[in-house]
């Protein structure tokens, strides 16, 4: 069981990282968006693997179902190919160096601490399940941030409508 979990982790990690790499290197934005979709699906699978079922479902619905579709719509408004793109401008080696240094420094601190695993694995997924536990937890402890988030979404929605309308008509 542990072995299967580990294999699944590596498979989903590979999907996620390959998708992310595609987003960075593909020049066609449509292909990059599809690559992003695969990356997000991999992340959702990793959430399921960590028994965050509700969050995995939210990831599937909001990211794969919402944000990627929004990206595709925006891409359809503009030409798919990056006309002004230069393949190897000076920023490539510099950016590669900075990203590598950044990643290596994070990995150094990650390796610093050995996490002992298996503390309390499924303590909060028993009984009512992950969704119910999150609902109770959210409404008991984080009600004000929750309402603030809904207000934020309302403001974002109005803003997106205003930004998206044609200029001379309201």
């Amino acid at each position, binding site marked *: 069981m542990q072995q299967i979990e580990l294999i699944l982790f590596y498979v989903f990690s590979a999907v996620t990282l390959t998708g992310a790499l595609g987003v960075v290197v593909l020049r066609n934005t449509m292909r990059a968006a599809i690559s992003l979709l695969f990356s997000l699906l991999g992340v959702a699978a990793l959430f399921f693997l*960590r028994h965050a079922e509700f969050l995995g479902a*939210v990831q599937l619905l909001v990211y794969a179902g919402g*944000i990627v579709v929004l990206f595709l719509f925006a891409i359809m408004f503009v030409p798919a190919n990056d006309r002004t793109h230069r393949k190897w401008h000076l920023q*490539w080696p510099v950016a590669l160096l900075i990203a590598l240094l950044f990643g290596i420094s994070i990995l150094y601190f990650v390796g610093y601490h050995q996490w002992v695993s298996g503390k309390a694995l499924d303590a909060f997924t028993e009984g009512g399940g992950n969704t119910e536990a999150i609902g109770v937890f959210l409404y008991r402890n984080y009600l004000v941030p929750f309402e603030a988030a809904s207000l934020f*979404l309302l403001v*974002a929605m109005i803003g997106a409508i205003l930004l998206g309308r044609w200029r001379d008509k309201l």
Partner: protein
Amino acid sequence: MITPTHYLVLSAILFSLGVLGVMVRRNLITLLMCLELMLNAVNINFVAFSHHFADLTGQVFAIFVITVAAGEAAIGLGIIVNIYRHKQTLDADSIRSMQG
């Protein structure tokens, strides 16, 4: 056995890829996509630690991160489409009218 270290390494690589993308790409839409990658890397860490410490706070925080990411994508793409209508380009280097 999957330890938090597995997830931390994965998330570090994903975040670095996002940073690299933001630095090398010139297309504004791709820039926004790389931003989403970085937010996902953060969410992976939240969920891994939430599982490790058996504390739901991490998952709740990840939900808020997803909320903000959704709003950011909607507003950002609206702005980008408007930029394209005005400038007929999505090249981040050519948008410099605020440079004075």
